[in-house]
């Protein structure tokens, strides 16, 4: 009988445990557990305890050079073997670069289905229910699956992670056990787009610009505003596609999911694919010259007007408030 939840996780770019792993373990426990975690990567030998701290029962660390770059040709056979060994009812993976590729391939290997980019998980009797945004975030779909195990990839930051405690997990180290010839894709070059200052994903304040800025120079005052607020600058897909601002700053369905305390949207109309990146943000302040812009419906504060006049004035007012 398949039982429990298998979480398949990885390290973040900085080598630390990816924050989604704690979120997945919490989600797995909420589904009834017990939770087994498999961590895939290279140079991740020390992350077992950190995953265990989120009250996983068992952590399998597959630290192997063949997993460098987490190519799905390498992660898929490893995940397939682990899924067969652990025999879980549910498999949870983060909607990360690894998860996007691994989820569908693993589902096909196990002759089952996967719900991608889920934001809520639950149980209906013994059935696993996965809920996910679709139509660019305009609608929500709820799925059950006919095969076993049920697989879901889960959007980063959609589910709150439990507070880590002391790890009592059994930690096992395993080799990948696959041949190098199985990996047909080769990464020959990787380039980081470095951003200065606070990381968009960690920022408490995000100031984002859209097509309404009229050109790349419009980002200059937004950068100044972000700087005095200790925040980061984001951008809509439209302006990244136009080359006005780096692709790595894109917020939305095909970019980053951000969860700042305050999101200031400047010249952003609020297409649902953009809103998908800020769906958990409680405090949105937006400025747009179109009083009917759909961003206003999701905003706590709406400023109808020309950002060119408003933003410089707002920078001065923020400075005054901060000095007071």
């Amino acid at each position, binding site marked *: 009988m398949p039982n429990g939840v298998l979480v398949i996780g990885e390290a973040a770019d900085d080598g630390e445990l990816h924050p989604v792993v704690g979120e997945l373990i919490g989600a797995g426990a909420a589904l009834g557990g017990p939770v087994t975690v498999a961590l895939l990567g290279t140079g991740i030998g020390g992350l077992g305890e950190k995953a265990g701290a989120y009250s996983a029962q068992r952590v399998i660390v597959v630290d192997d050079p063949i997993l460098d770059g987490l190519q799905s040709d390498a992660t898929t056979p490893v995940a397939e073997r682990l899924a067969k060994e652990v025999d879980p009812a549910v498999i949870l993976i983060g909607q990360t670069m690894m998860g996007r590729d691994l989820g569908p391939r693993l589902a096909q290997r196990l002759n089952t289905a996967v719900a991608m980019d889920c934001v809520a998980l639950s149980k209906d009797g013994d059935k696993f229910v996965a809920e996910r945004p679709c*139509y660019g975030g305009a609608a929500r779909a709820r799925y059950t699956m006919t095969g076993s195990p049920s697989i879901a990839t889960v959007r980063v930051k959609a589910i709150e992670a439990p507070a880590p405690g002391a790890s009592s997990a059994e930690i096992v180290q395993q080799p990948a056990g696959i041949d190098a010839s199985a990996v047909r894709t080769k990464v020959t070059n*990787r380039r980081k787009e470095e951003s200065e200052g606070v990381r968009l994903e960690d920022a408490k304040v995000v100031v984002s610009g859209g097509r309404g800025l009229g050109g790349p120079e419009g980002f200059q005052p937004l950068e100044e505003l972000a700087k005095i607020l200790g925040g980061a600058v984001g951008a809509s897909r439209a302006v990244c596609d136009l080359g006005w601002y780096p692709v790595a700053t894109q917020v939305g369905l095909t970019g980053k999911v951000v969860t700042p305390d305050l999101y200031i949207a400047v010249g952003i109309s609020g297409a649902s694919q953009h809103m998908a990146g800020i769906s958990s943000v409680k405090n949105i302040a937006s400025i747009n010259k179109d009083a009917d812009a759909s961003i206003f419906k999701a905003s706590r504060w709406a400023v109808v007007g020309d950002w060119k006049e408003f933003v410089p004035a707002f920078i001065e007012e923020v400075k005054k408030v901060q000095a007071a």
Partner: protein
Amino acid sequence: MPHIICLVKQVPDPETPASQFKVDEAAKKVIPAPGVQPTPSQFDTIGVEAAMRIKEKTPDTTVTIMSLGPEASRDAIKRSLAMGADEAVHINDPAVNDADHWVTAEVLAAAIQKISPYDLIIAGRQATDWDMGVVGLTLGEILGVPVVTIAKEIQLNGGNITVERVLLDGFETVEAPTPAIVTVSNELGEPRYPALMQIMQAAKKEVKAWTLADLGIAAPANRVNLEALYIPDTSVETEVIEGETPQEKAQKLAQRLREAKLI
């Protein structure tokens, strides 16, 4: 002579204004907005653009468009042919009208095998209706070929592809042997807009119409059940910041944000 297969799908227009986007919760279907025409899924059209860029460099390339779906899919096919694709296959069978992603992948795999050999299959990173991003990767498993996802550039050189992928914080270059599957992202750039002449020429190009019987397969069973489809309530109580001048509005907003302890 390289052969590229582009997978395309017709979807409700994702730019439908939020006020007109409606769902029939009982039927679990999107209600087409009046006056808003369905459109080829944006990432799929970008995939056709990627194929045409390869064809420009290697003119003896044949580009075949393939679509699974009802009659409305003809629009996505015609648009792709007008962009310069050579041939098209339309699989239309009421038995798979409600195909999930796995049924779609299995039917497409059978059709692809029928028009093999191929060097490259290009699809969008996800369709803009369900946003799953499953079909391309599943096809890779069924056909036993490597998949490289979220591409911004594809080069086809003999028996290899070189792909620029978009990562969250940068880019990577991936090489893989052909045949292979690549899914493309918006960073690849705007798809070309066909000229009137090309649209007229496309109307004369042959579109093969196949049913499951032509593929020699029965309808596979869906693997997921759609239990509910609804529009989430994302509206919040909005305060419109009033003021005579931008300065007045700026002062008021700064005040509100301070009261909420956000700045």
